[in-house]
């Protein structure tokens, strides 16, 4: 697709991303789930493009979705925008109460699983122990939810055989969590005590439009290692 001024291309969807970012991946999953065509721009986070810096001046991060020349940042905000703009294959439920529950769990996952995981990757000693403890407690809650909502007929939190909002938000764990554990040197995943969650991860990984998007393990380990060392190095030099 020819690249002209973004504002010229009515209806054009562009996603500024980074291969490793689970936040970017979520947005891609949402776009693919709805069959929306988009241009993907891989950002070099050590040398951010002018487009990225002008599209997301506040956070200067990916993902940024640019639609009809309008930029939107923050993965959960982007996913809701996608769901409201393209009506096919709904991501969030229709009923207001069910939507509230989906949003509640998305928030829980962000605050109690996603954020502490990243913090555990880039910390050590007592700091890391604290985060790992938080994570273990959060995973108990996740397993509880999985036990309550999932069974042989209902594979995903979206209900039935289809993924939904909560699956897309939690989905990064199916691949990234193991890498973070390995590189960070801690254990949170526990197949014996999280059987339903592990079933969910296995099912999520195999979803046809999800599977090809998962980055290769070695590449993820290499990058995570670099991130951890860079952050710990900075802390040590203070």
């Amino acid at each position, binding site marked *: 697709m020819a690249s002209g001024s973004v504002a010229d291309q009515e209806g054009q969807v562009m996603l500024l991303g980074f291969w490793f970012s689970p936040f970017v991946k979520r947005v891609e999953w949402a776009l693919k789930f709805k069959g929306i065509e988009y241009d993907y721009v891989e950002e070099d986070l050590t040398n951010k493009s002018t487009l990225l810096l002008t599209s997301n001046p506040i956070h200067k991060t990916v993902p940024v979705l640019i639609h009809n020349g309008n930029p939107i940042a923050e993965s959960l905000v982007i996913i809701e925008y996608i769901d*409201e703009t393209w009506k096919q294959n709904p991501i969030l439920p229709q009923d207001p109460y069910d939507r509230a529950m989906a949003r509640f769990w998305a928030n829980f996952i962000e605050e109690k699983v996603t954020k502490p995981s990243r913090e555990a990757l880039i910390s050590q000693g007592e700091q890391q122990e604290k985060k790992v403890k938080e994570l273990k407690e959060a995973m108990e809650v996740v397993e509880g939810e999985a036990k309550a909502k999932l069974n042989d007929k209902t594979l995903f939190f979206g209900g039935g055989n289809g993924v939904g909002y909560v699956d897309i938000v939690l989905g990064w764990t199916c691949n990234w969590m193991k890498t973070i554990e390995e590189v960070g040197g801690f254990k949170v995943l526990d197949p014996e005590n999280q059987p339903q969650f592990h079933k969910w991860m296995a099912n999520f990984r195999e979803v046809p439009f999800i599977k090809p998007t998962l980055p290769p393990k070695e590449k993820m380990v290499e990058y995570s290692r670099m991130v951890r060392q860079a952050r710990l190095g900075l802390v040590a030099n203070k």
Partner: protein
Amino acid sequence: MGEEVKLFRTWSSPFALRIVWALRIKGIEYETIFEDISNKSPSLLQYNPVHRKVPVLLHNGRPIAESLVILEYIDETWKQAPLLPVDPHERAMARFWAKFGDDKILGSIWSVFIKQGKEQEEAMVPAMENLKFLEGELKGKKFFGGETIGFVDLALGWLANLIGLLEEIVGLKVVDGEKLPLLSAWMQDFGDAPIIKDNWPARDGMILKFQALRDATIAAASK
């Protein structure tokens, strides 16, 4: 109608206030249940087992927790006086700014409040940067929602009350009328709006509470 709406709140929670404002703006009748955080009711623990916090909205016996989630639920359930805009891009912007408030503004202001000396000076830098973004967002608008109070105003509304209180406690001007004229004006306009004005928690109680919080945090940090 016979719809049962109950709100679990505390006297001072700024998050619960968001819900009070939303219910009042939409003219929804509701019952208030005041919680004592040091002695949570069995109902609260039953309705919000995950976080055990206020606010919790109970609608026809079904509980919803997390203030911004509750606001969206209220907006989707009662269509009068809409809080969020109609246009999807504008809705996305509103959600973005509400999130910015909770993720960045809250934390950076709190950092200024619980620190002292050089550390406090350093904490002012990101706080001011974040407040300047809000200032920019108010260009050409009376409220973040435009002519009338909307989702973002409710999400950021705590600023209109708490900033003055915190400034008094630490003796430091955080929202300077010269540096942040639009934000200062918004704090005034929002704070004085009829529905909002009537619901601020008791000033003396707030000063005591936050002074105690600051003292305790500083004491714990110096151990």
